[in-house]
């Protein structure tokens, strides 16, 4: 009854089976002869989704910051008083969950009793149970999680950079919220978010291990309710191309200044194929400009200007940005060096030989990521949220052209897109 489609990437020797279950849930199985099986059941709902309605509703609902993450915590409690961690532990599984700006994922890994564990996963995530008492209890636990975050300079540096880059976008909302914002959360609000975003048509199950689609479907048939598809309308604030603030600085108990240079990019291709192309080319470009073999990285390492230097480019269906991070006695010197270096590169252009080497490295890291069922399923999930099939990835890497990458170099870098966040030591 459910049509199962197999897709294959012959270069890396992997297959993926997909079907849309009658419940409305999309299911992906990536078989792997490993002992450890892994499953992640996700909803396309994260901290950025704070304003939404269902198609046909008159008004948008606005919810407090941190509610998606709060909801994730509360899913672990069940109406019969059982604890979800214990339910998994009885079958030897290691269970967890996480929330990001764009998604919430519930997961487990196990080396035995896969069917039982999958059943628990599908069961508890489809059965919400919230009461005023359990909400109050969680405010204490998450309050401590937030405080732990406040003492984490890398996190402060990141959110300050997001604040510097974005004026209005919800992408800058702190995933955990604040002690004040989570105080506004009620059981009713949680139910409202749950009913909107935990509709199976807004969710995806990706699983990898020594398992078959038939096996997964048997569990899904048993547990999942048949749901009518709901159309969610999300209200994302428009965002200007230029940065919000050039600098954000705070003082914390750190050893030396920690910096994060942000490079804003609001050009998000609507087509998944184009998005994938841009994401790969952007990654290759950043590796060419700032990766281990780049003049920039070698210079700041050998001169001792930066410790722990790293540079990354991220783009998905909501937002895009580049970041350069590290620790330096003088972040402004690093910033100036970065600006000059990129201007120079824009003039001289990129090197073809280097481009090919870095594409090979990019391919190698994809192949290696298939050495863990957890990496496989997580990466496949992240791509699916952007409408991308992981079986198309290595081909897309091979197809990215030098010309397109060089064009990105000229488009992505301009001073009006740059901002810097610095965490300074207290005594400075």
């Amino acid at each position, binding site marked *: 009854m459910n049509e199962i489609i197999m897709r294959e990437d012959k270069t*890396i020797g992997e297959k993926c089976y997909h079907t849309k279950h009658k419940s409305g849930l999309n299911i992906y199985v990536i078989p792997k002869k490993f002992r450890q099986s892994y499953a992640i059941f996700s909803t396309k709902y994260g901290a950025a989704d704070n304003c939404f309605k269902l198609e046909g509703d008159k008004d948008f609902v606005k919810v407090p910051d941190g509610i998606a993450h709060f909801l994730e915590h509360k899913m672990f409690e069940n109406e019969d008083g059982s604890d979800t961690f214990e339910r998994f*532990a009885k079958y030897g599984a290691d269970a967890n969950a996480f929330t990001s700006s764009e998604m919430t994922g519930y997961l487990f890994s196990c080396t035995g009793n896969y069917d039982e564990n999958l059943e628990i996963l599908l069961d508890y995530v489809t059965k919400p149970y919230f009461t005023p008492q359990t909400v109050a209890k969680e405010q*204490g636990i998450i309050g401590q999680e937030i405080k732990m975050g406040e003492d984490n300079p890398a996190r402060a540096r990141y959110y300050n950079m997001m604040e510097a880059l974005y004026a209005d976008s919800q992408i800058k909302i702190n995933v955990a919220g604040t002690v004040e914002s989570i105080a506004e959360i009620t059981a009713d609000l949680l139910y409202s978010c749950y009913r909107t975003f935990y509709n199976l048509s807004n969710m995806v199950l990706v699983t990898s291990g020594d398992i078959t689609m038939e096996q997964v479907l048997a569990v899904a048939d048993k547990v999942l309710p048949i749901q009518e598809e709901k159309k969610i309308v999300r209200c994302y604030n428009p965002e200007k191309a230029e940065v919000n603030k050039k600098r954000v600085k705070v003082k914390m108990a750190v050893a030396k200044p920690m910096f994060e240079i942000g490079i804003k990019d609001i050009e998000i291709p609507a087509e998944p194929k184009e998005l994938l192309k841009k994401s790969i080319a952007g990654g290759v470009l950043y590796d060419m400009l700032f990766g281990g073999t780049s003049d920039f990285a070698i210079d700041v390492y050998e001169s001792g200007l930066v410790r722990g230097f790293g540079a990354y480019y991220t783009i998905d269906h909501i937002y895009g940005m580049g970041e350069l991070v590290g620790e330096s006695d003088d972040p402004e010197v690093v910033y100036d060096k970065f600006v000059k270096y990129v201007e120079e590169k824009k003039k001289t252009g990129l090197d073809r030989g280097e481009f090919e080497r870095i594409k090979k490295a990019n391919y190698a890291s994809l192949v290696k990521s298939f050495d863990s069922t957890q990496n496989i399923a997580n990466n496949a999930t992240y791509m699916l949220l952007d409408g991308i099939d992981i079986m198309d990835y290595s081909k897309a890497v091979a197809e990215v052209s030098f010309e397109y990458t060089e064009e990105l170099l000229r488009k992505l870098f301009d001073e009006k897109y740059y901002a810097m966040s610095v965490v300074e030591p207290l005594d400075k």
Partner: protein
Amino acid sequence: MYSERKQIAKGAYFTNIPADKFKSNYIQIRFIMPLTRDTAAKNALVFPVILRGTEKYPALADMRRRKQELYDSGVWSGHWKHGDNHIVTIEASSLRNSYAIDDTDITAGVLELIGQVILHPVTENGVFKAESVEGEKKIAADAVRATINQKGRYARIRALEEMFSDDAYGISDGGSVEEIEAVCPKCLFDAYKNMLRTARIEIFAVGDFDGDVLEKKFSEIFSSVERGEIYEPEPDTKGEARAQVKKVYDRQNVTQGVLVLGFFTGSAASDDDYAVTKVFNTVFGGSAASKLFMNVREKLSLCYYCSSSLIGEKGAMTVASGIQFENEQKAFDEIMVQLDKMKNGEITEDEIEMAKKSLCDDIMGIDDNIRALAAKAFGEVMYGRKLTDEEKMAKINAVTKEQITERAKAVRLDTYYFLCGQEESK
């Protein structure tokens, strides 16, 4: 399952671990030496300095470019401690040759790089280049200073430093800032020579390697160095709790306190019944279904995390939790209440079953992780005992509630550490 461990030079051994399921290959070379205040910083700095340049790849850019040509193979160095031993590694992770999309021989390239790093560092007047030494010293010293950036990790390091203040295990595996700053090019070069001459060397290769080729290559490398009196490591050195608990308060500008408790369990990894300690720890605070998680976090909402972990080589256990300053006593009391419950046998069959399942799952899971396979092989060498996964699980499953209770009774608090705010009055 393992091929034999073979001696390839005096005090140097090679173990090839064939594993079919991975797309990558992994090599780990462990240099095992005593952990001493005098040598820790130097030993840890040797390979980072050499990774800046060898005879064939003299500049950092040459080294890095070569790795990139080899499909971005990682070749790096690490250092940590195992009991009173200092372990310095060279590790390499690379794509299997069969996944190369051209005719690159990745494995051969990686082996050549490793040979360069061990035998052919760039030198200047017969010692390491001063510039490279100074550069790596700065990075290492900054890394030590930066431990304060991560409060949870910092608190645990500080607590262990205090707990083992009279013991080799209290020595930092990267050295202190002062020890790092005192390193000179000549003394570092001497440390390098000494390492090659006296360290016990254990090499592990996991993947689809041709074991004979690797054995030959490593024999060539290590038979070309002069080997003297080789260090013989002890796997365990059990610590004992102080007569009076050592209390330490560190003050910083933090918004959350971190409580770390150091215990001695009276049981170390080489003990035949160490499985009991493992089950005890998992029931107590080693999982999300444990007593500490269910009570300190879920029942009392005091924290986001509260967990225990074992240090097998020292017969020790730590408990850590991030809490509000004013909840210090409350959290401590609850942790001790849970320990008392373990001592009084207030442990359910369910708790024991869950802990055993979790530990068995860990044992089974090692097979899927290329680096964990190397670590497991090292454990077998260190403890001179090679059990199958089934035998290990049988040991876990044979543990009884009475044994767990007895073990709990032997647990002694040794160190009480609290990282708190500047204003806390205590």
